[in-house]
């Protein structure tokens, strides 16, 4: 029999901790930011192994002077960039209004995507209109970019008589098949692997459409994330697998999801999925990597994993107070800046935009949102107006079975 092995030191349990909590000095010193333009842009048919370094760096296009540099520069036309900027600015104005409305008691709940607008705004521009997105609750910019009416979004948030979800869903849980926007689930991660199934179906049918899935870095801990990667890899599904790493999952920093040990992008490598890590606050970089991933998917080269490195500048939701778990001004100190300001400054630096243009855009966005707000509020805010109570019993099944019919009669509706 072997002698029992002895540890040189007693075992100890490690629980990771963020660098700064409320009251501590803000500390982003652990963050390694690769220079803009440094990451190579491989051919789309490169193997996951060949491009593995891209999972550990940051693909960046806009440099410190807001000039677009390097092989990932997507060379967008000024018109395209202005369209992207507009989506971001409208999204921000929309978020601000709806957050305020919740604070005024006009609805029960709201979630902003402030600081993360570039992710969905750039992706909407890089994807085809009919590619199917499987979003989380922080991709409202997809709907806005694809022209879904703001007033319908608001009607959903107010659960009013014109609510497309018929009063059944928590605010922000939009759905619109016509806009390639899959019904949002409150259960984290579930949609990530469903997107792979949708992509498999598209491949099965010889279609040209691809799927685009989203998950927060916190939710990559769920089994669904790992199922998605396995299925995407095994069936070479035409899907873009986006991890939006905004550093915080409610009060848990990204280290609680394993982000201190390796990047979220690097999860793809073990599955043989090409994986990129991108500066999520750099509109042009997000556009470029998405286009690369979409080209791969459309060329039958299978899935790509993209980690969008960004920061949740907003509270998690209207139920949250970030001052209880992170330094108050951490968002302002985020080394990768603000996505709206960076694209704005790039356009200005290229002579395509001015402060006045930007102010005019902000005003246009505020007016647009206000007008939609007035329209939705005229129908009614939460509790003032709602769909018929009958709607509670509809759509449980295609045809309502006797027992649910009887319950509806018991309620007298």
């Amino acid at each position, binding site marked *: 029999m072997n002698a029992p092995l002895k540890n040189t030191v007693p075992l100890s349990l490690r629980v990771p901790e963020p660098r700064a909590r409320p009251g501590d000095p803000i500390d982003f010193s652990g963050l390694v930011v690769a220079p803009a333009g440094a990451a190579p842009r491989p051919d789309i048919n490169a193997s996951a192994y060949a491009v593995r370094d891209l999972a550990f760096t940051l693909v960046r296009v806009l440099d410190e002077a807001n000039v677009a540099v390097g092989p990932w520069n997507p060379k967008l036309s000024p018109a395209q960039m202005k369209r992207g900027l507009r989506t971001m600015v409208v999204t921000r104005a929309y978020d601000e209004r709806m957050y305020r409305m919740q604070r005024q008691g006009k609805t029960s709940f709201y979630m902003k995507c402030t600081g993360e607008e570039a992710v969905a705004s750039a992706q909407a521009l890089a994807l085809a209109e009919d590619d199917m997105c499987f979003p989380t609750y922080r991709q409202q910019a997809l709907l806005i970019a694809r022209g879904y009416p703001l007033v319908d979004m608001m009607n959903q948030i107010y659960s009013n008589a014109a609510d497309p979800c018929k009063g059944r869903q928590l605010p922000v849980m939009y759905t619109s098949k016509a806009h390639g926007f899959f019904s949002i689930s*409150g259960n984290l991660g579930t949609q990530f692997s469903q997107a792979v199934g949708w992509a498999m179906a598209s491949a099965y049918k010889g279609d040209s459409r691809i799927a685009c899935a989203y998950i927060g870095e916190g939710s990559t801990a769920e089994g669904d994330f790992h199922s998605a990667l396995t299925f995407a890899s095994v069936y070479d599904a035409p899907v873009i697998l986006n991890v939006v790493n905004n550093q915080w999952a409610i009060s848990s920093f990204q280290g609680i999801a394993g982000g201190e040990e390796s990047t979220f992008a690097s999860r793809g490598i073990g599955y043989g999925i090409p994986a990129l890590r991108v500066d999520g606050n750099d509109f042009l970089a997000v556009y470029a990597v998405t286009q690369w991933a979409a080209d791969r998917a459309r060329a039958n080269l299978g899935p790509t994993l993209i980690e969008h490195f960004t920061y949740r500048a907003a509270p998690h939701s209207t139920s949250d107070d970030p001052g209880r778990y992170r330094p108050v001004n951490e968002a302002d100190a985020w080394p990768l800046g603000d996505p709206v300001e960076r694209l704005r400054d790039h356009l200005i630096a290229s002579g395509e935009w001015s402060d006045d243009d930007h102010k005019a855009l902000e005003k246009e966005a505020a007016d647009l949102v206000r007008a939609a707000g007035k329209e939705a509020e005229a129908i009614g805010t939460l509790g003032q107006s709602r769909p018929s109570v009958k709607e509670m019993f509809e759509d449980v099944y295609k045809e309502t079975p006797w027992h649910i019919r009887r319950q509806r009669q018991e309620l007298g509706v």
Partner: protein
Amino acid sequence: MPAMNMIQALNSAMDVMMTRDPNVLVFGEDVGYFGGVFRATEGLQKKHGLTRCFDAPIAEGGIVAAAIGMGAYGLRPVIEIQFADYIYPGYDQIVSEAARLRYRSAGDFTAPLTLRTPYGGGIFGGQTHSQSPEALFTHVAGIKTVVPSNPYDAKGLLIAAIEDDDPVIIFEPKRLYNGPFDGWHENPVSPWAKHPDSEVPEGHYTVPLGKAKVVREGNDLTVLAYGTMVHVAQAAAVHAGVDAEVIDLRTLIPIDIETVVASVKKTGRCVIVHEATRTSGFGAELSALVQEECFYHLEAPIARVTGWDTPYPHAFEWEYFPGPQRVADAMKRVMEG
């Protein structure tokens, strides 16, 4: 004795047990530094240390599985699932593993874990912050299922659960965290401090698992309820003007059959109330038990008042919720029957 709301009482139970037993530790999503989204674990990390109250990755299956492994080692983990609506990724670990470990290993390994999770509606939480999934667990042999209805019981039941050698799930009625909500949703809820069950001893005590409590004595009919519905049933009895005996089951499995049977034999009538959907709900089990044990004493058909067989709808919360009016109507029906 200090007056505590339900959150404070639950917090006190964990604090007491962490102080007494180094094998007790607490983890779950956001429970560490932050103290949980409902603040039930506030201050526990600061007081007992980082490795005794910590954040878990967002993986309910992982949380339950880790607790099973720790239990197998000999610890007594207390885990929080942030909302009962998010328990499903952990369902396999609960049903196939925690519930059966003792049986399949002939007692060689056990899973003495305690799982706390807020359940129930009435907070405009929509379909993913309002569910009452208790029947999915009462159906599974090997798990105990507990639902407190007030601060005193919440603390005593949680301590009993932590000390219990089997896996216990505690469904905490989140609508009762801050006050004894009775279902008249347009009225303000009085705080727990005004309720006698908010007097909670600071130290160690238990409320035994498997024991119901008669919270209102009466002769006309028996109401079987748990959690939020205990308060709704009492309000309904007043509203209906019926001399109802209201039983707070407190533990669903193992159920306190003696207390149920003694009451129904006395009153001859029975109304069962729960917030969960009706079909295959725990009320169906209760109804079958009462019929089997009390058939010759029943003077009217048993009535069930429950949530409807639909998801919990955001805008129709109060039509969905089996409030005091619906319970009172059922009481009157049963009195006529």
